[in-house]
């Protein structure tokens, strides 16, 4: 099952030159590999290892979360909204699952 990603802009339609916050939420359990289940067995690590944020196919930010990232993590960035464009987010986890989501940034 691919990783579900949600992308939101705040403000939703920024003015040209305004700061816009890009908020990304990934629906993922983010197992750190240190937790134990009811029978005392260690639950194997399974967390997102790489998340790329691209604007018009150019990498603007890359996150490499370690095991110490919460379940259903939030990733928030700020950028200057100079032009409209397409934001693409891709991610990859330890078991090889990937997720992808695109969102259009439009100016007011």
């Amino acid at each position, binding site marked *: 099952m691919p990783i579900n990603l949600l992308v939101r802009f705040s403000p939703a339609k920024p003015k040209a030159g305004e700061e816009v916050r890009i908020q990304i939420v990934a629906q993922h359990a983010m197992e750190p590999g240190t937790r*134990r289940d009811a029978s005392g067995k260690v639950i194997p690590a399974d967390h997102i290892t790489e998340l790329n944020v691209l*604007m018009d196919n150019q990498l603007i930010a890359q996150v*490499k979360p370690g095991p*110490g990232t919460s379940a259903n993590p*939030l990733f928030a*960035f700020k950028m*200057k909204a100079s032009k409209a464009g397409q934001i693409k987010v891709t991610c990859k986890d330890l078991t090889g699952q990937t997720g992808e989501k695109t969102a259009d940034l439009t100016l007011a």
Partner: protein
Amino acid sequence: MKASAGAVAGTMLANQLTSALAQTQAPAALEGQDLANLEKGLQQVLGKGFKDMTVSQQVKLVAPTIAESGANVPVEIEASLPADQVKAIHCFSDKNANPLLFTVILNGVLPYYATRVRVAETAPVRAIVETKDGKFLMASQSVRVTVGGCG
């Protein structure tokens, strides 16, 4: 005579106070710090030790002093530097089994990042901003955890 003795004692006390203050400021003893574990993580990720980090006012770290749950601690990092000078943001927590919480490589966005992290037990969270000219600016804050987030 009595008055001058008092004055001398007073200045001595003041000296002691300032030296004590300087001592607490220099190593920044934070609640639950574990420099040995942190050093291990720093060497592994950055190839630098704790002594290579510069404590800076330019880095702002927003984290709760008491976390409701160690599994979900909101962390916000902001650097008051021009966007083109910041290369990456790293975040560490002293007592986690793997001290590295995350690394963010910035390439066109403003030097700001917010996320939620797991903190195993009461320990400082350290935000390290790596600049293009190879400096590491650090801000630390102790987070008290009652329910651990990694077990």
